[in-house]
């Protein structure tokens, strides 16, 4: 560490303008590691070190930020000045003019059972080499790969009112893919399409059976080549947890983001069919639907103690017994809307300001077994692992596709189908939820995009298998 990097916290605190209505410095260091093996070739490891500071200043009804990777005294001072200039330039013309933000003190760190530091690089790569090789089950496998993406993110938030929140989050996203081809028929199977990530260390690799998955993934990719196209029709639909991730994300998560409801995202990510008057009364789903915002779930991707505004995070029901309870909106959005929300004001890094995001958004477990849900289907399909997602800008008309379908006839799985897709409308789809299993599985996604300027953030989702009735199902081209 150089002299310039010593006493950074003291230097940041000393630069916060004392006369501002509110001021903060958010320092973020993100270290990333990407290991991958493709078709038997170890690809060059990629390590990243991303570090910078964002100053935010609220003064006289204006708000501004200045972010910089220049951590010299001069660089930091210039960033504070830019934040102050923006506060002055926006005074009297901002969407919000008084800060509701708090000066919180606290800390949080991801519990790690088995650190990656306990395994050297050669052994980590060996895991991927073995996984990659194991997927090569057939000559029709034309592409395969195993990868492991890790993030170690340290955030320090300091405010001019004595606030100090320090957090360290460590996330792991293992990934596998096998692609099989014959002629114009190409089929790919993955390890949950990166959904089987989590917080922690090496234990995340084992949580969803990474070691045993490669052979199955290779065999299923090949089997899909000979499988019939998914049939077209209205039928029961059973979604596996690694498709529920997407279903929750797109048709519950985004519509409940309060900044969308307030209109902030209308030029980019879109608006929401949900309106402020719906909270407390709207029947979002059947009475089997219980959805929580829960940053307290151990090991889930987006667990944390505080959001990036310093608001303490806690488990909160967003939908209870099918009834909409509250939106996902941070402290600023809550003040704008006059609604209760949650601690979800998050930034993708030091160079972007916090906005309302998902964190851990979970469908709570039911009481049925997966077998019982299958047994209750006379004619339907089980879909696994998202491959395609599209939804309108109000988050209502959706169409999603999966890697693999399993036909269900008279309560039993009868075989696999390829190119399974389904479409529906959010506001009616969840009311057709007819069964929730007891196999609560924690997952997430590393790629949720939103915001202007754009931000990609990592979010968590947990869900059991869920069954829906009367869904429009269809396949691909013949």
């Amino acid at each position: 560490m150089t002299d310039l990097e010593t006493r950074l916290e003291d230097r940041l605190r000393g630069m916060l303008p004392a006369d501002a209505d509110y001021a903060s410095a958010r320092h973020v260091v993100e270290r990333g590691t990407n290991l991958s093996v493709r078709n038997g070739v170890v690809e060059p490891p990629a390590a990243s070190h991303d570090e910078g500071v964002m100053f935010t200043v609220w003064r006289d009804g204006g708000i501004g930020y200045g972010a910089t990777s220049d951590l010299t005294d001069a660089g930091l001072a210039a960033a504070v000045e830019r934040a102050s200039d923006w506060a002055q330039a926006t005074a009297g013309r901002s969407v919000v003019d008084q800060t509701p933000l708090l000066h919180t003190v606290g800390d949080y760190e991801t519990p790690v059972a088995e650190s990656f530091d306990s395994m050297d690089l050669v052994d980590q790569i060996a895991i991927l080499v073995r996984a990659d090789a194991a997927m090569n089950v057939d000559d029709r496998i034309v592409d395969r790969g195993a990868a492991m993406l890790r993030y170690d993110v340290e955030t320090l938030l300091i405010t001019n009112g004595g606030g100090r929140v320090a957090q360290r989050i460590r996330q792991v996203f293992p990934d596998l893919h096998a692609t099989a081809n014959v002629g114009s028929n190409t089929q790919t199977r993955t390890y949950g399409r990166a959904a089987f990530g989590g917080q922690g260390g090496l234990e995340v690799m084992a949580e969803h059976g990474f070691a045993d998955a490669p052979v199955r993934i290779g065999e299923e990719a090949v089997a899909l080549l000979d499988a019939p196209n998914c049939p077209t029709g209205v039928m029961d639909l059973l979604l596996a947890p690694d498709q529920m991730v997407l279903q929750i994300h797109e048709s519950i998560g985004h519509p409940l983001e309060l900044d969308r409801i307030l209109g902030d995202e209308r030029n980019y990510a879109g608006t929401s069919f949900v309106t402020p008057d719906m909270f407390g009364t709207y029947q979002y789903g059947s009475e089997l639907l219980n959805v929580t915002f829960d940053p307290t779930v151990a090991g889930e991707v987006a667990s944390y103690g505080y959001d990036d505004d310093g608001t303490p995070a806690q488990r909160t029901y967003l939908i209870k017994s099918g009834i909409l309870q509250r939106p996902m909106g941070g402290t600023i959005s809550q003040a704008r809307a006059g609604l209760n929300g949650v601690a979800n004001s998050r930034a993708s890094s030091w160079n972007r300001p916090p906005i309302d995001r998902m964190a851990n958004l979970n469908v709570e477990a039911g009481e049925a077994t997966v077998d019982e849900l299958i047994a209750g289907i006379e004619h339907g399909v089980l879909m696994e692992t998202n491959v395609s997602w599209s939804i309108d800008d109000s988050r209502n008309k959706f169409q999603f596709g999966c890697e693999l379908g399993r036909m269900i006839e008279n309560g039993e799985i009868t075989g696999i189908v390829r190119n399974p897709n389904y479409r529906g409308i959010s506001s009616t789809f969840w009311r057709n939820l007819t069964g929730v299993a007891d196999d609560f599985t924690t997952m997430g996604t590393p790629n949720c995009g939103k915001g202007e300027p754009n931000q990609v953030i990592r979010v968590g989702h947990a869900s059991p298998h869920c069954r829906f009735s009367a869904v429009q199902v269809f396949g691909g081209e013949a």
Partner: protein
Amino acid sequence: MSVDDARERFDDLVTWATGTLRGDEVLLASLRGENSDFVRFNHGAVRQAGSVQQQSLAIDLISGRNHAEGSVTLTGHPATDQVRVAVLLDDLRAQRAVLPEDPYLLFATDGSDSERSVLGELPAAADAVDAVSTGATGNDFVGIYAAGSTFEAFGSSMGQRNWFDATTFNLDWSLHLRGDKATKNAYAGTSWDEQAFRSKIDWSVRELVALGRPPKNLPPGGYRSYLAPAAMQEIMGMLSWGGFGLRAHETRQTPLLRMVTEGASFAPAVSIVEDIAGGVAPDFQRAGFQRPNTVQLITNGAFDSHLVSPRSAQEYGVATNGAEDYEYPLALAMSPGSLPAAGLLDALDTGLYIGNLWYLNFSDRTACRTTGMTRFGTFWVEGGEIVAPIEVLRFDDSAFNLLGDRLEGLTETAETILDSSTYEHRSMESLRLPGALVSEMTFTL
């Protein structure tokens, strides 16, 4: 830090790092940075406003066929940055020592120096806020003003240096009437012209008037349609997702697979080129290779050439044409046709005028079948006259249909679209696209 200072310090840093190399080590260094202002608007007021100054240096440390890659943010302070780079080099050296040889390693060993600056004269940030706020008066204005300088550079221990910088602005906005009824527009370039901005706002306001008519709720089915350039941008975005890259073709994951396996083609009117010379992206890439002025991707409806990264070139035994690893076009241009803009609605006659599409994805990738939604400024047209806005519709159709036998024509002018994307940094991608008239587009929901 000024762009000139950033360039000088990058050069010094690569020279310094070269001096620390051991044995036969080779260093490839890529810089990406920006000094940007971002102002976000909602309801015509400012939601968030601020500035971002950032620089990140990516390094590939090579010895023989062994190498490891890493990146680090730079402060701009030479002593601190030298320490950071030294730490990174030590890490990469340690990794490289235990890694097997990489058979697909390829980098430029005789590349030439280059420099390109896209100069701009931008208003002071506060003045831009004044101009936008004034222009937004009386309207529900939502959007983002992004402006400033961006720069990219390549340097190697073999002495090669390449530099690119651009000073640009991009105001991307929508005016909203009610619910999802809104009109979309953008004003981007290198120098702010108040009159040009005003005329674009005026166009948005006029379209808003048309959006005020009672919306038409169309049932699913096939409709004759005109896709405006902004809608074509979404279609091209999907084609670009594996459509032109060599690796996607070789691994049979390309959405244009039927061109490879069955000789399928688009209509003869469709020609698509990667037009680096006509775009605003750098003409060099991270392994030091130059990008040619153009790469012909689709010629008269038939597949022509791939985008080939150095890694794919080595894997598949062909020459690289300077694509990055993801083999995605950075300056895609589609040849215009002969449809005059003035007679566009007459040519459409009765059908859909689609201003924008939204959230596209493949419903059957290998068939190039794509689904997505209508959005912003989409109208029902009868007898060559706009009748009503529509409630949003979902389409599900193959580009082999829309750009194939159902393509009736392309507009005689192509519109330049500067990508407004700001993920991690401001995008330097662009497109030049005509509008397309199709005899039928399939809508499903």
